[in-house]
């Protein structure tokens, strides 16, 4: 009985663990991206993909998915990112475009090519996007 309870507890933890996917527009030139490549786009170190300028999107500062993205993909704290973007701004760089909702994200993904964003794995299934990377939120 105890084992059964533990099994269900473990299962419920797995089920509630959020999964994040990095998505590109449906004609995105690549089939997948590495974590390092995603970092480079999100930190504006790289801005082109196959000669085309890419639109990179992020959620607002208080969004849980963004916290997961910064921790697990960018692997930087909020403080470290603040410091990075202060310095980058002086060099003329700009952070990713902030979108306020999934609807806004998918609207841009449909309208702009190439474009890049991220969302909850469950939500994206309804949309025609290219899944480029997948990670579980800790």
């Amino acid at each position, binding site marked *: 009985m105890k084992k059964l309870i533990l099994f269900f507890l473990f299962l419920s933890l797995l089920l509630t663990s959020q999964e994040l996917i990095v998505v590109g527009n449906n004609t995105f030139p690549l089939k997948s991206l590495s974590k*390092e490549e995603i970092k*480079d786009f999100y930190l504006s170190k*790289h*801005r*082109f993909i196959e*000669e085309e*300028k890419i639109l990179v999107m*992020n959620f*607002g*500062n*208080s969004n849980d998915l963004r916290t997961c993205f910064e921790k697990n993909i960018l692997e930087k*704290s909020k*403080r*470290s*990112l*603040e*410091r990075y*973007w*202060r*310095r980058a*701004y*002086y*060099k*003329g760089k*700009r*952070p990713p475009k*902030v979108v306020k909702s999934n609807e806004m994200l998918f609207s841009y993904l449909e309208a702009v090519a190439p474009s890049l964003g991220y969302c909850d794995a469950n939500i994206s299934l309804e949309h025609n996007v290219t899944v480029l990377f997948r990670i579980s939120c800790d």
Partner: protein
Amino acid sequence: MFRRVSLIILLLLTLLKADDNLAYGWDVPESSLNIGGYSDLIYDTQREPELLIDDIALLVSATKNRFDFLAEMEFSHISLDFNEKASREVEFYVEQLHLSYNFNEEQMLRVGRFNSQIGFWNMIPIPILEDTTTKPHFLGHMFPRYTFGAMFKQEIDENNKLLLTLQKNRDFTHQEYALESKEHLSLAYYGEKDDLLWHLSIGEYEDTSENDFNYLGLALQYDGEDIGLQSEVYMQESNVKNYVPYSGYAQATWHFEEHQDLVGRVERYKDTGLNVEENIYLFGYAYRPTPNMALKAEYIKHSVLPINQMVYSFSVLF
């Protein structure tokens, strides 16, 4: 009148930045233009007058297809002495004015006036971006801080890049605390791995008195979550008697609370013109209540020159 307006502007600027989303400046609608800037109010016990708006600067940037444009213009030394006793005049500088063309992700050509791409400090030499208000001695002594010419960037791979800088003409403006050069040639290498960055530079320049100087620099930076370490060492050679054979520093920053830092810096340099070889010690504290604001206090002690000082500053990026 100008001083009062400047102070009011400075105070208003602190309100401009939302504390969110990492973006600065104002994106001009229906264009790729962004307008922002920074400002510093500094109290320095070794300066006359002691309290100054050290600078109010405007940053204008634009990006269009493969082109990037950046202009940095500033008013400096705005005294807050409302009795008109201030001895220093307000000055206007064009610090940067350049256009870059990105051939692709790996190659970029820049022309105009820009911060010489050497070391770490010289790339972001404004108080709001650095851990201390005062700059290390090497800045303004070892190589021209600004280049009015061309720069070519070549990325070797994702973590390594080379920068070649060339100037073959006089600068169109002058700058306080900056060497003025007629010619400048430098080759810089930057490498990085995770939180560790390293840099090597070699170059030569001719100043406006037609004296030749060579320099060699080595720099290391570790930008960790709790601790930041940074060190730069430069050596100089010249055909003249007055030069700076070496100058370098090592600095540690401890991010001990979410918005608070403690900073320690040790410097050493030799200046044959002043006939001085000394150490400089700095101990400082910084409080950043929001990402775009910094309040700093630091004490600087010189081992030889009688210019120990306390410096306080309030900086804003907007």
